[in-house]
């Protein structure tokens, strides 16, 4: 595909994520049309838009769950458009799912351990990890970070919804993430849980950038520095949180008259 020289030169471009003309068709339906956006390393951005605006499809194209019909996606300068999802993940991309995508038959600890194992060597190892296994410790630390230590040996199927949402985030933070896509992490959370979520997001190391899809503006606008508005599969507006919030067109389209 790319020559080495091209790839090297694009490394200098310095974007964490660069989408050019990304279009995704489902049959005749265009879920995404000509989306072009650039996100700096460490940048935190919200993607807003009504249902069907193409937000989750955008995530699916970036991670490779559904490859784009046309356009290119670069991740830290590397063209990953035709990579399978696991190759993108191994390069530092992470995502969470709108509807928790966990492993209900395994314990919390094993869920997180798998996430740590997935981005390191020995995925096919037939040897059980020992007591001092680095990844076991990494998983324990991560379980603690999302306040799930108390339930770490419980099967995930037994967890409460809020705990499952926290685990969902833990899975996306395993290894050395460079960029995370959060798909409605606050869905179904109580106000207290939302506060905890905000705390988790704002305390992420500064080099980890993310895009967050979130309907709750109180959550979304408190944890990001830039906002992209989507409408009917296209980028409709980009700007700072306060600009977007006060934009009359945005209010008309998305927030509706009944907001607040």
């Amino acid at each position: 595909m790319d020559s080495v020289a091209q790839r090297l030169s694009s490394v200098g471009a310095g974007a964490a994520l660069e989408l050019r003309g990304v279009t995704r068709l489902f049959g005749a339906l265009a879920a995404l049309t000509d989306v072009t956006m650039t996100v700096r390393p460490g940048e935190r951005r919200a993607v807003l838009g009504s249902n069907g605006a193409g937000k989750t499809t955008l995530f699916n194209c970036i991670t490779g769950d559904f490859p784009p019909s046309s356009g290119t996606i670069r991740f830290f300068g590397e063209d990953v458009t035709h990579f399978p999802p696991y190759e993108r993940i191994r390069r530092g991309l992470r995502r969470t799912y709108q509807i928790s995508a966990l492993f209900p038959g395994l314990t919390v600890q094993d869920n997180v351990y798998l996430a740590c194992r997935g981005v390191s060597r020995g995925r096919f190892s037939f040897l059980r990890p020992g007591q001092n296994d680095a990844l076991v410790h990494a998983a324990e630390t991560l379980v603690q970070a999302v306040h799930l230590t108390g339930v770490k040996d419980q099967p995930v199927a037994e967890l409460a919804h809020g705990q499952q949402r926290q685990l969902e985030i833990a899975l996306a933070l395993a290894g050395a993430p460079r960029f995370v896509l959060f798909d409605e992490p606050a869905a179904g959370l109580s106000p207290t849980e939302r506060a905890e979520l905000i705390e988790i997001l704002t305390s992420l190391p500064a080099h980890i950038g993310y895009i967050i899809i979130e309907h709750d503006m109180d959550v979304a606008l408190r944890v990001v520095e830039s906002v992209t508005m989507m409408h009917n599969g296209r980028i409709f507006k980009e700007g700072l949180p306060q600009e977007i919030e006060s934009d009359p067109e945005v209010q008309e389209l998305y927030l509706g008259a009944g907001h607040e």
Partner: protein
Amino acid sequence: MSLAHDARVTVRPTAAVQRSKLRGWPEIDNPAAWTMAAILLIMPLIANGFFLIEIFATTLILGLMALSLMFLAGYGGMVSLMQLTIAGFSAYMVAVFGVSGNANISLGWPWWLAVPMALALATIFGTLGGALAVRTEGIYTIMITLAIGAAFYYFTNQNWAIFNGHTGINTVATPHFWGINWRSDIPFYYIVLAVAATCYFAVDYVARAPFGLALQGVRDNPRRMAALGFNVNAHRVAAYAFASFVAALAGVLQVWNYRQISPGSVSVGACIDVLIIAVVGGITRPIGPFIGALIFVLLRTFALDFLVKLGLDGNRFRLLIGLGFLAIVFWSSDGVIGLWQSWRRRQRSGAASSSGRHDRGSGQGSSHG
């Protein structure tokens, strides 16, 4: 939220500690497992040759085939109906490469060359079949693997150059060395027991190793596994390779047991028997297939006499198996193991409520219900 899960912690603190202690070798503190192991070891003192071979060795061999299916279905969520075919292929290869009464076909290699060859070829065969099957999900996996099984059955029936058609290959030689005939009842029983025990512990061990955990992750949510950096299909194919090796071992034992192999042993009906054995026993734990195999072999051996006594056709033993299968699937989502576990749970909750009054800690009496 933190309040909620702090409360949960106090509910089962001992369970958590015990479970993490048990991560090394399972069942080491389980007296029932030790008793079972002891009985199996001294079986030749208790049982006569008929029981030793026709019941127990046969159970262990069928159990091994069902174990390979249990590994794929229970941990990987892939129902493969070709595990018996892989075992049969391995059995044929032992007969073809080794020594048999059909000198025009068998190459006459010594067993210690023929067996590794058979294991390798059968594992490759199963892995290639798996590579085809992993491109499909659910019922299509069942259909593809059934198609491979059916194709192999008809091929063995019609191919005379290698598989000797419907007569199969007879009087297959069995190993003799160190002055022992390893196919005589007692040595053969111990060989089968050793292989079955090794495979059982291997499956149990691998289930908690990264490979086995990842396989269970693939079963629960393949899309998420890809989003964690796993190559899902590569994992599935590797699972087929491992399971095929187990099935291939069973095939070697099978051909040594009967000293012959013919298309009847790899028929579509026999493929489905393996599925029934695994489901009746339970596919969530490696012990399940062996329980299922014991039930199957006992029914197959004794139902005939029982039915004849009732004045029915003895060949209707499959009717009994079918009814048992229906009953178990109806009352338990996980075969005999499932029934046993729910019975243990009832016992435990009964014991917990009575011991609560006497202030005795009952807790997790059995970690391996």
